């Protein structure tokens, strides 16, 4: 049944991947990557989130409308984060006034 989602073996494999990624997250935190520590941690977190959304939440197996709705949520989040940070991160660009 398409609506029932994938077989349990897919879930187990995704879980194994998530466990490995968790170990990677923690391991990388103790390695000095300088400015890239945050980017690395967030990249791994994104990978985990994508796995959960696609496989555990069945987005990979469902209708496109669902994928669109999930993507829309992320777009709105990106607008909020992006525009807010555009403001704050450029506050000292104009120099002393």
């Amino acid at each position, binding site marked *: *049944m398409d*609506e*029932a*989602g994938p077989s*349990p073996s897919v*879930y*187990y494999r995704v*879980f194994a991947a*998530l*466990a490995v990624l*968790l170990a990677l*997250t*923690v391991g990388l*935190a*103790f*390695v*000095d*990557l300088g400015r890239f*520590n*945050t980017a690395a*941690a*967030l990249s*791994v*977190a994104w990978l*985990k*989130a994508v796995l*959960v*959304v696609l*496989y*555990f*939440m*069945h987005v990979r197996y*469902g*209708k496109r*409308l*669902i994928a669109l*709705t*999930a993507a*829309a*949520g*992320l777009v*709105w*989040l990106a607008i*909020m*984060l992006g525009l*807010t*940070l555009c403001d*704050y*991160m450029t506050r000292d660009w104009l120099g002393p006034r």
Partner: protein
Amino acid sequence: MTTQAVPPDMASDQPALAHHFDDLAQQRAAASFGMWLFLASEIMFFGGLFTIYAVYRNLNPEVFGHESRHLDIVLGTVNTAVLLTSSLSVAMAVHAAHHNRRKALLLLLGATVALGSAFLVIKGIEYSHKLDDGLFPPTAATHPAEPVVQGSKLFYGLYFAMTGVHALHMAIGIGVMLWLMLLAARAPHVRARATPIENAGLYWHLVDVIWIFLFPLLYLIDRNG
């Protein structure tokens, strides 16, 4: 003209078809779509907190990194593993519901409740340590041995706000899972109740995804050197 759903046929393993849908497939799709719209609103809800975090961390990078080391990385990692396992059990529970396996469903929902509760207990232990250190309420928000600096109150305020709201969502999720167990125990065919079980599962997965981001952003800011 009645606005009630057609009463379910107790011998059927399909849910009742509400009158405003053409067929069960459309009904299922509408339920899923509605749930995802709610999840999008939840993403924006937590997104507001993440935005505040992003701004204040940007303004106080060293302090945030320093205070982050005071969080218990072991308990945080264990909690992350607990939540990931609970997402697995929820996914398997939904699978059991679709295949009409009541006992497996009840066991897996029970496992989810147990794992979620374990998460909250561990969180409670972490909070009690913070209370002992005098960090809550975050008024004198840094460790007693250290002077209060600009940004440390912000970090702990965000820590308690973000993990606290997350824990509230976990508690609600556990309540929903318990309700689903009641549903699963009473329904003539659990397959007929697959839709609410699946949608509650979506909520649970989202709360897990939020923690997936909370963990590195709060606990792992600056753990090297």
